[in-house]
């Protein structure tokens, strides 16, 4: 008995029509999730090493704790470079933050706010370039912008606004540098290495890597 629908007609795509550059494909969503979760695990791991640094430095020096923060900003950079669609940087960083919070870390729910602010910072840079440029400088800028996002958030979250101006300025400086290097540069290199293995063949960055070989 052929009841109801086994197959509904989807709007005709005539076997391969041009797709909107900004529409997320299923593979974009799934791989964003995979990257987000994997990076979330990295965050959770870095919570120890980077956390230790932050502990040592933030407690004793004004704002130098920010040097280690870059790794926690890498989700946005990688999301933007791989997926290259609106919201990718934000989504990957957010998923990574949620995973890190769910596994359990010291900052709890506020990790998710950080993820939002940091992802948004990175996203704004990719937006500024109209999602057309994904070079190393763009990656480093988005890493730095993610750092600025974190800084703004922490004025309220960690109540940094109550701390001295020197602290806040030094912290801003270290966040920008750390974001550009540990998130921007490292993120860019990681995406290139991943593309070289052929795992990203369904993405533009994977196809670019092929041409280089």
């Amino acid at each position: 008995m052929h009841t109801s629908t086994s197959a509904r007609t989807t709007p005709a795509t005539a076997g391969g029509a041009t797709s909107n550059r900004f529409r997320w494909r299923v593979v974009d969503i799934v791989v964003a999730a995979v990257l987000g979760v994997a990076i979330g695990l990295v965050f959770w791991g870095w919570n120890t090493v980077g956390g230790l640094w932050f502990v040592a430095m933030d407690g004793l020096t004004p704002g130098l704790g920010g040097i280690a923060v870059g790794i926690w900003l890498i989700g946005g950079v990688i999301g933007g470079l791989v997926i290259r669609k609106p919201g990718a940087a934000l989504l990957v960083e957010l998923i990574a933050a949620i995973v890190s919070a769910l596994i359990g870390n010291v900052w709890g729910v506020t990790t998710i706010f950080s993820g939002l602010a940091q992802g948004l910072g990175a996203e704004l840079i990719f937006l500024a370039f109209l999602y057309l440029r994904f070079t190393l400088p763009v990656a480093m800028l988005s890493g730095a912008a993610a750092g600025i996002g974190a800084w703004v958030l922490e004025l309220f979250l960690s109540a940094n606004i109550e701390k001295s101006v020197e602290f806040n300025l030094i912290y801003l400086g270290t966040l920008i540098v750390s974001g550009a290097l540990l998130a921007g540069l490292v993120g860019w290199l990681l995406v290139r290495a991943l593309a070289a293995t052929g795992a990203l063949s369904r993405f533009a960055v994977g196809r670019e890597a092929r041409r280089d070989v």
Partner: protein
Amino acid sequence: MIAPVDVSARHAWLDGVNPVAKVAVVIVLAVPLLVSIDAVSAATAIVLELLCVPLTGLAYATVVKRLLPVVLFAPVAGLSMLLYARPGGTVYGTFLFATISDNSITLAVAVLLRVVALALPIILLFARTDPTELADALAQVAKLPSRFVLGVLAGARTVGLFVDDWRTMGLARRARGLGDRGALRRFFSMAFVLLVFAVRRGTKLATAMEARGFGTDVPRTWARPSRLSARDAVAVGGAVLLMAVALGAAVVTGAFRVVGT
């Protein structure tokens, strides 16, 4: 329901709350605390939340265990505030950029307690939530786009399947002469390979999902309906009440202090 309920799990009150309501509760228990930076509101929130632990179905021991890293780390946040807050009241000492004063001590204690109060809700509410249930709720109740919610759920699941691969890769590196030194390099190289595996499998999974009709504009039906009930209103209402008491206590004792003043 497609699957019969697993009767063996102890059924706690909170298990019957819709995951979207749980998300709302977590937000309610966190955001208001960010408005004020004082020790009383944070401490009251912590105490009241700990009193609610029986509702969550978790043992106190589990909660304490999960809270431990937070409690150990919280003093750091406090220390930073202690040394670098803007000076106020009696000044007890200075060193380079650091100044310890009455103001910084008050703020330090407040921040320390606040860190714990912000970490507690997620531990209490999401330790026992099934991810599929959460995804169903987010798509059906919160009306988030189902493509994204389910796509993220499916992708997130694939990453958790690689434990055996990790162990085998460790053995493989010993076999190739790299097992003696360089634990850090090994760690990164293994992590990278796992990332390759995960992205590849995610890509194949996306194809399989599309083959099963996922991602089209056809309106989806749900085999596992997710609905809101009275219990959800009670949970959210309870959270609002808890926050009101915590902040109220701060106002009454005069400790209430908006961030930035």
